[in-house]
C-alpha cells in the first residue's frame, strides 16, 4: 500500500503564482489540483466607470504575451454595442496583428518552453547549448512575430494602436510590404518546426476531449464566427454564458470554467485544429499529415505539433493578408456611444478569450466580464494530470514530477491571465 503526494510549490515573483498537487493512495490517483494563488486582479471591477474606448488599452495589460487577444475581444464586443462592423482592410489588419501574436507566442512556447521537456533539458537555455541553430531559429521566428505586432501595434508590450472601430494609424501598402520577406522566411522556418516537433517522443496518452473553439465558415478562426464544440455546441458568441459557467474552487483564485451539465473542456490549438481543420490552408494540412497527424489530435503532448501547424497557418495567413492589402481611406470607423450589451470572443494562442460589456448612453462601462483561456482549461489540465499519473505510477518520483509539469505545459497556460511556475517537490509517504 503506497501513498504519495506530488507537490509543485509555488514560486513568488512578479505576475503569477501557481502550483500543482497530485495525491495518490493505494496506487490510485485520488486528486489532482492545479493550485493558483495569483490574487484576483479585479480588472473587471476597475473597468466599471471607464469609457468604452479605454477597454482595449486596459485589458491589454492583463497579459504581456497575448495583449492582442484581450484588445480584439474588447473592441469586437464594443463594436457590437455601437452597431459598427469592421470589414475589409481594417479587418485584415486586425487578423494580421493577431497572426503576429500567434507567431511570437507559439515560437516561444514550442522551442524554448515545451521542447526542452521532450528532449530532456531542464530549460531552453540548456537546450541552446546543444542545439544553437534550433534555438536561433526560434528567436528569429519569435522576433518576426514581435515585429508584426510592433509594426501595427506601435510597441511590443501593451500595443497602443488598436482602437474600437479599427486603428489610430494604418500603414501604406509599401510599408506593409516590408514585412513580406521576413514572413516568407518565417513560413519556411514554420514548416521546419513541424518536422522538428514531429520527431519528438511522445508519452502514450489520449483522452476524449470536448474541444471548444470559434468556428467560421470562411476562415481559420481568430476573432469571428460561432462558438463550436465537437460535442454539439454551435452557438453565437453572445450565448457563451448560457452554455458555459465559471465556479470558485477553494484551491484557486482563478475561476474554473465548465460546460453546463457536462464538465471540463479544452480550448486552444488542439480544439481549433479538430474543429476547423477544413479551414487550414493546404500547406498547413499537408504539413500536419506529413507529421503524422489526422484531422483530430487526442494526445495532449502532441499539442506541440499542432502548435507548429498553426505557426504555418499564421505565417501563410499573414502573407496572404499583406498581398491583398489596400490602404483604407480612414484608419477607423467612427461611432456614437449608445446604451447596450456586447460580447466579443477571440482565439488567444492558448484558447478562447471571452468578453462581455454593458455600457450606458454616455459610453461608460457599467459591467464587464472576462473569461480568459487558462481558467477554461484548468479542469482539463487537472483531468489530464490525473490520467497521466495513473498511467505512469511506475515512473520514478523525479521523472513523474517532470512529466507532470510537462502535462501542464501542454496547455501553454498563462496564470497571470487568469501563473508562474514552478519548483517541484515530491513528498512520498509509505505506510
Amino acid at each position: 500500500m503506497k501513498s504519495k503526494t506530488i507537490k509543485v510549490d509555488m514560486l513568488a515573483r512578479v505576475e503569477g503564482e501557481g502550483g500543482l498537487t497530485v495525491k495518490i493512495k493505494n496506487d490510485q490517483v485520488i486528486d489532482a489540483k492545479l493550485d493558483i494563488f495569483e490574487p484576483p486582479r479585479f480588472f473587471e471591477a476597475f473597468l466599471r466607470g471607464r469609457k468604452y474606448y479605454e477597454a482595449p488599452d486596459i485589458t491589454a495589460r492583463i497579459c504581456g504575451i497575448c495583449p492582442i487577444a484581450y484588445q480584439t475581444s474588447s473592441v469586437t464586443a464594443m463594436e457590437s454595442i455601437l452597431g459598427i462592423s469592421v470589414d475589409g482592410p481594417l479587418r485584415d489588419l486586425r487578423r494580421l496583428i493577431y497572426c503576429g501574436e500567434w507567431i511570437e507566442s507559439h515560437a516561444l512556447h514550442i522551442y524554448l518552453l515545451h521542447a526542452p521537456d521532450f528532449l530532456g533539458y531542464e530549460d531552453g537555455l540548456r537546450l541552446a547549448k546543444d542545439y544553437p541553430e534550433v534555438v536561433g531559429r526560434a528567436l528569429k521566428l519569435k522576433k518576426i512575430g514581435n515585429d508584426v505586432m510592433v509594426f501595427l501595434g506601435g510597441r511590443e508590450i501593451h500595443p497602443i494602436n488598436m482602437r474600437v472601430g479599427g486603428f489610430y494609424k494604418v500603414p501604406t501598402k509599401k510599408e506593409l510590404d516590408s514585412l513580406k520577406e521576413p514572413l516568407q522566411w518565417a513560413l519556411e522556418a514554420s514548416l521546419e518546426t513541424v518536422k522538428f516537433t514531429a520527431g519528438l517522443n511522445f508519452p502514450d496518452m489520449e483522452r476524449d476531449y470536448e474541444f471548444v473553439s470559434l468556428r467560421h465558415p470562411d476562415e481559420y478562426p481568430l476573432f469571428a464566427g460561432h462558438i463550436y464544440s465537437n460535442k454539439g455546441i454551435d452557438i453565437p458568441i453572445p450565448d457563451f454564458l448560457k452554455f458555459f459557467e465559471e465556479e470558485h474552487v477553494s484551491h484557486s483564485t482563478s475561476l474554473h470554467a465548465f460546460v453546463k451539465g457536462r464538465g471540463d473542456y479544452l480550448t486552444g490549438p488542439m480544439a481549433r485544429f479538430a474543429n476547423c481543420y477544413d479551414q487550414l490552408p493546404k500547406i498547413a494540412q499537408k504539413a500536419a499529415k506529413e507529421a503524422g497527424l489526422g484531422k483530430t489530435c487526442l494526445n495532449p503532448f502532441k499539442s506541440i505539433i499542432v502548435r507548429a501547424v498553426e505557426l504555418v497557418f499564421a505565417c501563410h495567413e499573414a502573407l496572404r493578408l499583406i498581398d491583398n492589402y489596400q490602404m483604407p481611406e480612414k484608419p477607423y470607423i467612427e461611432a456614437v456611444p449608445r446604451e447596450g450589451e456586447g460580447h466579443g470572443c477571440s482565439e488567444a494562442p492558448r484558447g478562447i478569450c471571452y468578453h462581455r460589456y454593458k455600457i450606458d448612453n454616455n459610453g461608460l462601462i457599467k459591467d464587464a466580464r472576462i473569461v480568459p483561456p487558462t481558467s477554461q482549461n484548468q479542469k482539463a489540465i487537472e483531468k489530464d494530470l490525473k490520467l497521466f499519473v495513473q498511467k505512469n505510477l511506475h515512473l520514478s518520483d523525479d521523472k513523474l514530477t517532470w512529466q507532470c509539469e510537462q502535462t501542464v505545459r501542454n496547455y501553454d497556460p498563462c496564470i497571470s491571465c487568469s501563473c508562474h511556475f514552478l519548483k517541484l517537490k515530491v513528498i512520498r509517504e509509505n505506510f
Partner: protein
Amino acid sequence: MDSPRQPFLIVGIGNEYRADDSIGIRIAARIKKADLPQMEIIEGISDGTSLIALWQGRRKVWIVDCVLSGNSPGKIFRFEALHVPIPEKLFGKLSTHAFSLTEAIELGRTLNQLPREIIVYGIEGRNIQTGGEITPAVRDAAELVLERIMAELKNSGQ
C-alpha cells in the same frame, strides 16, 4: 524592416501597474524625456528573449529592473554582465511562458549574441501589489540610478 540601430539602448523591465515592479520602466521613461541622440529607450518587454533581438549590434546596453532578494528596499545592485552571469537569485525565474533576464543574458552568451557592453541595474523592491504605492526608498534609489546611468552615458561618449 529593421531601422538603423542606435548604438545605445536602455531597457526598463517590469509591470507599470505593480508599484515597485514599475521602477525600471519609470527610469526608462524619465531618460526618454531627455531625448538624447544615438539612444533608444524601451519601456517594458513581453519576455526576456525579446532582449536578444533588441540588444544585438549595440555598443552599450543598460537594463533596469526591480529585484526581490530580501534586502532592504532601495538597495541598488549593479552588474557588468558581458563576462560574468548575473545572479539568478536576483533576476531569475520565471513563468510558464516567459524567459527571465538571467536566462536571456545566458542565452545570448550561448548563441554569441550579446552587445559589446551590458550593464544591469537592480533596485530592491518591497511592494509589488497591483495598484500599490511605490515604496519611498525605491523612489529615492531610482533617482540615484538615473543619475548614475546619465553619468555612464556621458562617459561612454554619448
